[in-house]
C-alpha cells in the first residue's frame, strides 16, 4: 500500500495561508503560513498559549480564522455547498486530546459510527471493518462491548484513533496523542501511529509537547512562535536553529535526555 501512486503529488494536503486569529485584542496568529505535502508527518510545537490547538481547530473547521485561508487537498475548507464541505471533512480523521468518545455507545459502536452515518456499508461489512480497525490499533475483539467509561486512558486513545481511521482518511490530525499516557504506553502508541502511517500512506499533523513523541514520529517540525511558523524543517535542522524558544524547548534536561534516546533520528 505504501507503494501506491500519489495522485495528488503536486497539491499540498494542507495549506494555511496568511492566517490571522484574534481573541478580543489578543492576536494569536499573525500572517501564519504552512504547507504540508502528502505523506509528511508534521509535528506542531510551540509554547503553551501559542495557539497550537487553535490552529488545529481552524484546520478541522471548528473555528474560522479572522483572516486568511485554510485549504485542504487544494480546496479552501469552506468552499462549495454543504455536500462538498461534508465530503471534504470525511477526508480527514481527528484524534481529540481526551478521545471524545461517545459515552452512550460502546467501543464497536463508537468505531463504526462514522461508517453507519455514511450509510454505504452493510451491517456485516461495518462489523468486519470495525474488527479490522480494532486489530490495527491493537484492541482485542472482546473489548468491543466495553463502554468508554470502563476504558483506561491508553485504550480510550486507541479507540479514538480507530474511530478517526474509520472513514479511511488521507489526513490524520492528532491533538497531544501521548498526553496522559505513561512512557511505556506512550511509546507503544507512537509505534502504532508510525506503523499506520507506513501501511496506510497517511499524512499526519500532530500537536505535541512531548519531545519523545516528536523525535519518534515527525518527519518535519513546525515551530509556532511569535504568532507564526518560524521554522518548518526536519528535527535535526530545527535543533540547530538559533531562537530562544527552540533553546528553551530542546535544551532542558528532559529534552536533552529524549534527544539522546533518539540520536539515530538526528543523523
Amino acid at each position: 500500500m505504501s507503494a501506491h501512486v500519489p495522485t495528488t503529488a503536486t497539491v499540498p494536503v494542507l495549506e494555511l495561508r496568511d492566517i490571522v486569529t484574534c481573541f478580543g485584542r489578543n492576536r494569536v496568529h499573525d500572517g501564519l503560513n504552512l504547507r504540508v505535502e502528502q505523506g509528511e508527518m508534521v509535528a506542531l510545537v510551540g509554547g503553551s498559549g501559542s495557539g497550537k490547538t487553535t490552529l488545529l481547530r481552524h484546520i478541522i473547521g471548528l473555528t474560522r480564522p479572522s483572516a486568511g485561508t485554510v485549504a485542504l487537498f487544494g480546496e479552501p475548507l469552506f468552499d462549495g455547498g454543504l455536500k462538498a464541505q461534508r465530503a471534504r471533512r470525511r477526508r480527514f480523521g481527528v484524534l481529540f486530546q481526551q478521545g471524545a468518545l461517545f459515552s452512550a455507545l460502546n467501543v464497536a459502536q463508537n468505531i463504526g459510527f462514522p461508517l453507519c452515518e455514511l450509510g454505504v456499508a452493510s451491517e456485516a461489512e461495518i462489523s468486519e471493518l470495525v474488527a479490522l480497525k480494532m486489530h490495527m490499533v491493537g484492541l482485542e475483539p472482546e473489548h468491543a462491548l466495553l463502554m468508554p467509561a470502563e476504558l483506561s486512558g491508553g485504550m480510550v486513545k486507541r479507540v479514538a484513533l480507530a474511530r478517526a481511521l474509520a472513514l479511511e482518511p488521507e489526513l490524520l490530525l492528532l491533538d497531544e496523542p501521548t498526553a496522559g499516557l505513561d512512557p511505556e504506553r506512550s511509546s507503544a502508541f507512537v509505534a502504532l501511529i508510525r506503523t499506520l502511517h507506513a501501511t496506510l500512506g497517511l499524512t499526519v499533523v500532530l500537536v505535541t509537547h512531548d519531545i519523545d513523541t516528536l523525535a519518534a514520529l515527525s518527519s518535519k517540525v513546525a515551530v509556532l512562535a511569535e504568532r507564526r511558523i518560524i521554522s518548518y524543517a526536519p528535527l535535526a535542522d530545527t535543533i540547530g536553529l538559533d531562537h530562544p524558544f527552540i533553546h528553551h524547548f530542546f535544551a532542558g534536561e528532559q529534552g536533552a535526555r529524549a534527544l539522546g534516546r533518539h540520536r539515530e533520528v538526528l543523523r
Partner: protein
Amino acid sequence: MVCSGPGTSTVTLYGEWTLRRLQPELKHLRAQLDAQDQNAAWDLRNVQRLDSFGAALLWHGWGRRWPERLEIGEALRGVIVRFADSARQPLPSAPGYTAGDALVGLGRVAFGFFAHGLDFVRLLGQLVLDMLYLLLHPREWPLKETSANLFKVGVKAMPVAALVGFLIGVVLSYLSALQLKAFGADIFIVHILGLGIIRELGPVLVSVLVAGRSGSAMTAQLGVMRVTEEIDALSAMGISRTQRLVLPKVLALSLAMPLLVLWTSLMALLGGMVSAWLQLDLSFAYFIDTLPRVVPIANLYIALAKGVVFGVLIALIACHFGLRVQPNTESLSTHTTASVVTAITMVILVDAVFAIATRSIGLPG
C-alpha cells in the same frame, strides 16, 4: 472500475478502490461484483489504491473466500489478507434479551427502589449531622453558597413565576366567573379564588415550576461535577460534599420557596382580580376588602409551610439524583429526567397528605 466482456471469464479491476472514490457509484459496483461468475479469474494488477473498505467490498463480492484465479500485487494482497484475517474473528455481539433478563430487570428495579430509599435516607441523615456540626461551628456555615443559590433559585425565578401565576389567575377567574354568573353568585368569585389559589394552587404551581427549573439544574450541575471528578476533588480536600453542595441548595430552596409561593399567589390573585373586574364588574376595592374576611389567615400559613416542605423535598431529590449520576451522557439525561419527575410526583403526593392533615384548619364554615 470493473471491466469484464461477455464470454471472457476474466474480471479486470482498475482505478482507485477507496471509500471516497467508490462511494458515488457504489450501488452499481455492488451489482457488478455480484453478477460475476463464481469461477471467474480476477485481475487486480491495474488497481492503484485499495483501502480496507475496498477490501471489504471485494471480499464480500468474492463470497468471503479467495478466488481460485487471482492476479494481484503484493501490497494489495496484504490489504485484503489483513481484512480477511480480522473478518474471520467476528466481534462478540451483545447478548440478546431473554425471559431471564426480564426477571433480572424486574429484580433490579425492586432493589434499585430499595437502594434509592436507602441512599435518600443516608443523604437526609448526613444533612442532619452536618446541621448539628454547623450549630457547634457557626463559622463554617456555607453562607456564600447559600446566598448564591438563593439568587439563582429565588430571584431569577420571579419573572417566570409571576407570568405563569398571573395567567393562571386570569384563566381561573374567567372560567369561574362564567359559571357563577349563571347562578347570580358573582361575589363568590373572591371565595373561590382566595381559597383555591392561596391554599392549593399557589404552592403546587410554584413547586412544579421550580422542580422543572431549579431541580433539573441542580441535578445536572451535580451530575457534571461528578463526571469531571470535582466532587471527588472536594472529598480529597476533606470538605464534606453534603455540607458544601447539598446543604446550600436545600437551605436556599427552603427559604426561596415560601417567598416564591407568596409572590406567585399574589400575582395569580392580581390576575383573577383583573379578570373579575372585566368579566363581572367587581371593583378592586371590593375584592381586596372581601378577601381577608372570607379566607382565614391560617390558609396563608399552610401555604408557607407547604412551600418550605416542598422546597426541601425538591432540593433533596435533585441532589440525590445528581450525586448518583454515572460518568456518561446517557446517565446524566436519565437522572435529570428522573429527578424532575420524582420531585413533581412527590410534591403532589405530599400535597395530598397536607390536604388530609389540615382538613379542619382554615376552612370557612
